């Protein structure tokens, strides 16, 4: 789906607000300065996501997944490749020995990181739409991207789109790339885009 430049800018700006909140929370949590790169935003039909993200995530994707429901509903995901997930938890938890794999405590720490990011994004969207969104408990999945995307679309008839945001967590001179994806039905997306346009107009009026 093609966004107008205006929609793209407005969406980027909204997500930047959420990312700034996330960076502040993660800095406080870890005791280190954490920055999140200014995101690049795209809106893709769910079928296109695999092709776009397939280059970044070749094997298993580590995802933190939260379902949200209310006047707008969908799935929010933070996705990292395995090495990135290990590195991010090592950097944030100040792990003195580099890990090779995600143990149970590392998975839980990553779940909290995803939870902070997804709460911030969905919180900003909720404020913008003046609606209260309910969140499910975040879950960490480790599976291939194709399977993950199929599991999200099971049981939905509505055409699904994903707001895909590529970013990087920057901590102590290291960067870990990842993707945020907010998967919505076409009506929720339409509502979101219209609210964002209105917000931008009132913001710059």
């Amino acid at each position: 789906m093609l966004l107008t430049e205006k929609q793209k800018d407005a969406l980027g700006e909204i997500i930047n607000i959420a990312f700034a909140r996330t960076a502040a929370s993660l800095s406080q949590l870890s005791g280190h300065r954490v920055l999140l790169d200014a995101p690049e935003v795209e809106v893709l039909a769910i079928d296109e996501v695999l092709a776009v993200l397939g280059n970044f995530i070749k094997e298993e994707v580590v995802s933190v997944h939260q379902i949200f429901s209310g006047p707008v509903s969908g799935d929010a995901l933070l996705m990292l490749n395995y090495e990135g997930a290990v590195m991010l938890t090592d950097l944030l938890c100040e792990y003195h020995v580099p890990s090779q794999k995600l143990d149970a405590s590392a998975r839980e720490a990553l779940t909290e990181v995803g939870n902070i990011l997804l709460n911030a994004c969905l919180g900003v969207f909720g404020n913008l739409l003046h609606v209260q969104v309910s969140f499910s408990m975040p879950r960490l999945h480790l599976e291939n991207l194709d399977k993950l995307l199929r599991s999200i679309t099971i049981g939905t008839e509505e055409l699904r789109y994903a707001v895909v945001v590529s970013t990087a967590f920057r901590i102590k001179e290291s960067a870990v790339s990842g993707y945020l994806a907010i998967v919505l039905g076409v009506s929720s997306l339409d509502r979101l885009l219209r609210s964002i346009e209105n917000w931008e107009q009132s913001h710059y009026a």
Partner: protein
Amino acid sequence: MLKNFDFNGPIIDWLNDYAPQGIVTTDTALIIRGWNRWLEQTTGRSADVVVDRPLFEVFPDLVERGLDRMYRNALDGQVTVLAHRFHRYLVRLPARPEYNLSEMQQSARIAPLVSEGKVVGTITAIDDVSERVVRESELVAAREEADKANAAKDRFLAVLSHDLRTPLTSILGWARIFRSQPDEEAIRKGAEVIERNVGVQLQLIEELLDVFRISAAKLELDLAPIDVRETLGSALETLEPMASAKGVRLDRGIPDEGRMAVLDSKRFQQIVWNLLSNSLKFTPEGGSVGVTLAYTDHCFHLTIADTGKGISPDNLPHLFEPLWQAEGSGGHGGLGLGLAIVRNLVELHGGSIRAESSGPGQGSRFVVEMPWLGPQSGHCRPALPSNSQVM
């Protein structure tokens, strides 16, 4: 127990009685409305004492640590995960004694309690993850140990390759000289160098073989009654030239009378030779090395004390570990096997060895205690079991 029905119901009742985790519920004013059996048992506070009190009055620590924000977010519909690795615990509770932890390690989930689409309070689930945390730190420690051992092996192979090649380079050099100018003077001088280098390499290979024999428990002692004084004397004689070449005085404090002990003569000489050559190596010109032999009822004591560079307190505990070499001992070379072999040989004889030093520049002392009657006698064993092994 849960009170005031907003928070009651068969599922909550079940969580109250059987949940293997702590469950605390509050209303929207963050007044505690539910406090399950797990919490009663682990905190020692019954629901009667806690229910109807403000959450932050019962746990003021939550506000001090900024976690009250999570409860306000929950009232806005947000779910929060509190990972053990970031927070250690949600509420401070004692850990079970077997874990040897200062407090119970926890992870927690804080979520809104929703009824008919409206947030009516919060629910918190607290998991005790102490066992997992202990297991994970044990795994990390084991991995660190394995990494250290690998690093020591890599270092060992690097030094070994270097030390095996160095004498060969010299031998090869002299072989080329013989070919190009085979005069008598060159042959005499070259033969000396070749002999010395072959000796160095032979000793290195002997040490390696000893290490492998010890680690495979294949080193057997050839025990026989020998005169300690006499055997020590002949070991000292072979080292006398090395001491005088270096300008180090060799002082002897040896009893007039000889006594018989059950020892492997060759290995005992190796102990003396290794300790003494080690002291000579680290003692500068003008210094001295003293060798003292003393007798007690069950054991004899051999002390080798030098005025050399000494040992820092940090290094003392590692001195007898195989492949270990102190920082700054560079220039003296070697694989760091000598003292490890000595300790193993002493212990095979049923004896013990310890090193003492007042610090860098203060010299060092090695004290060996050996039983008169061999390893089976049970005397002169170290007070504490040895915790390091060769390789």
